[in-house]
């Protein structure tokens, strides 16, 4: 978080640096919030409206383990495991019935989201104690930024994207998973257990959601059962702006959206930043209905056709 004390509009080296940290903060948040949803949407075509609640399970897992006495990193592992296990159960019982019913899958997962967040409220009460953010702040001139959420988390976000890229392009598992998504019939004929691929992909998406929750558990302040929505809106917007391509789409959309979000937040406060993000998303959807990567694909195809 950045606390401006000077008049924000006066441009100095410090304020540019502060703006840059704000951008990193926002970029890391959007990438991490989006990536789990993007995998499930990009690979399986399912929009998981309970994504915010998957993240929330990561948050709750981490916080509960931490408050029970576990060190924070171990608590984070617990959060990831909880979300992954939940994801596998949900895939087997609910999501697998909806692979060819896109709109129904949104409705069903929304129903799930209502149930999960309300159950968390019933079981754990209206809030859990917050976890203090590790690593402290760095000060420069009149500004200060949190090292954890403005430096460490964006760095992790980039690593996650790089890791996913390697996983889906360089490993046998990744190639099998992509083959399953591309053409399940042929993949089955080639001896791939497509059912397992679906579960695995959904589990990876859930694990990433859990990781996001675990990482943000100490950065959220109060932990309440409606926190999922904070992530869901950003994730939604970034997924549709990014388009079908998981990694490039997430990267491009997060980059564009966080520039607007950070600039708006920095100059006029978080409310304007949030509004700007949503308005940019609406305009982007109107101009590029298949998202940024859809547009790039189109453009490449046209160029190839011209040659």
């Amino acid at each position, binding site marked *: 978080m950045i606390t401006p004390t000077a008049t924000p509009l006066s441009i100095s080296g410090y304020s540019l640096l502060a703006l840059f940290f704000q951008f990193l903060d926002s970029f890391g948040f959007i990438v991490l919030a989006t990536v789990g949803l993007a995998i499930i949407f990009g690979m399986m075509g399912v929009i998981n409206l309970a994504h915010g609640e998957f993240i929330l399970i990561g948050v709750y897992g981490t916080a509960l383990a931490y408050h029970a006495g576990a060190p924070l990193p171990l608590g984070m592992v617990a959060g990831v495991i909880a979300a992954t296990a939940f994801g596998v159960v949900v895939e087997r019982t609910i999501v697998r019935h909806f692979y060819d019913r896109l709109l*129904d899958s*949104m*409705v069903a997962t929304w129903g799930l*989201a209502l149930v999960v967040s309300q159950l968390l409220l019933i079981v754990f009460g209206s809030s859990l104690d917050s976890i203090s953010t590790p690593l402290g702040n760095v000060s420069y001139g009149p500004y200060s930024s949190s090292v954890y959420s403005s430096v460490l988390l964006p760095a992790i976000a980039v690593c996650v994207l790089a890791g996913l890229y390697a996983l889906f392009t360089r490993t046998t598992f990744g190639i099998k998973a992509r083959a399953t998504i591309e053409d399940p019939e042929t993949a089955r004929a080639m001896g791939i257990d497509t059912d397992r691929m679906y579960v695995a992909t959904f589990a990876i998406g859930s694990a990433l959601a859990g990781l996001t929750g675990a990482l943000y558990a100490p950065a959220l302040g109060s932990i309440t059962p409606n926190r999922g929505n904070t992530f869901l809106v950003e994730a939604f917007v970034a997924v549709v702006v990014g388009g079908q391509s998981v990694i490039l789409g997430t990267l491009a959309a997060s980059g564009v959206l966080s520039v607007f979000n950070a600039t708006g937040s920095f100059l006029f406060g978080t409310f304007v930043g949030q509004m700007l993000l949503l308005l940019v998303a609406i305009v982007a959807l109107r101009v590029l209905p298949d998202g940024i990567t859809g547009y790039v694909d189109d453009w490449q195809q046209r160029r190839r056709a011209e040659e």
Partner: protein
Amino acid sequence: MIGDSSADGRSLLGRVRDRLEGPNTIGDSTTFWGAFAVVVAALAVYPQVVGPYTVIQTSRYFALAFLALSLCFIWGYAGVLSFGQVAFFGVAAYVFGIVGINLGSVTGAMVALVAAVVGGTLAAALLGYFMFYGGVRDTYVTIMTLVVALVLNTFMAQTAGSEWAVGEAQLGGFNGMNVPSLAFGIGQSGLVLERAALYYALLVTLVATYLGLRVLVNGSFGMTMVAVREDEARTATFGYDVPFVKLVVFTIGGALAAVGGVFYASWGNYVDPTVFGIGFAALPVVWVSIGGRESLLGAIGATLVIERMRTELSSGIGPVGSEWALVIVGGLLLTVILFMPAGVVPTLDDLADRARSRRTEQSQSTTATEEPVE
């Protein structure tokens, strides 16, 4: 339309029924219309037999039923799933409040009603134009409508300061805005729609809207809507302007939601930003999915039943406290969409149809004795 050419020789009632019935609605039998009349009559005497609290609550369910009809119409008949119908509902509610407060008379409330419905409808037309002529499709429409509602939610929530006022109307941020009651008359005197009067106004409007929508979806435009739902590309090949059809459908949907919004705001004399929130936005999807998205009657019925259930649960039943209401509603939604994808009413209709055809088959097989036994 079916029977248009042969309708000349038939009674007025027959001609009206021809218009109301068709392949796109459930309930074309005389039995159905008999039952329908009985239910409407029962609802008409309902306020005489129950207490004022129930009447007031039921009025709220009726207002929400317009929201359900709006989603049912665009999703069930044209395949456009919107998570943001509450946006037009809320816009109309706010416009009604703002105009009503500033004009501040019975005539003012009538002007506000018109302004609010026009406002909600225009908002839908604008968003629809933006989406359907921009090539936004399927899930992207769903997300975009939800984002629009959330933008409005974020925006209205921060209008608490006194600088956020339109004329004399303070928007009020999270605290909401007080809204005058609907009224009909001239100057300061007239019929103010409250309690039983509001109930009857809502009942009449709801029944009229339901019948009007039946005529619409069974007419030639309704057939085009269904064609768009079933196969957009093919419909376009036949020369239909698909974006235009969707725009018209979405605009009508917005108008329906707007009517509901005016009634809702007038019912509670109050509107706040939660009408744009994600929790409220989920409700129309719940009602319509459970009732059956291709059934107007199912959408209305599910709204009444589910909202009634939520009211009952809000005071808690036995060990089940009010906090379980959302869990039950969400669980119901999941169960229905898993096991009855079409929704409750269409599934029941299907079962009834099958039972009927089995009965006719049986009676045929008992009379046809010369059939060879295999």
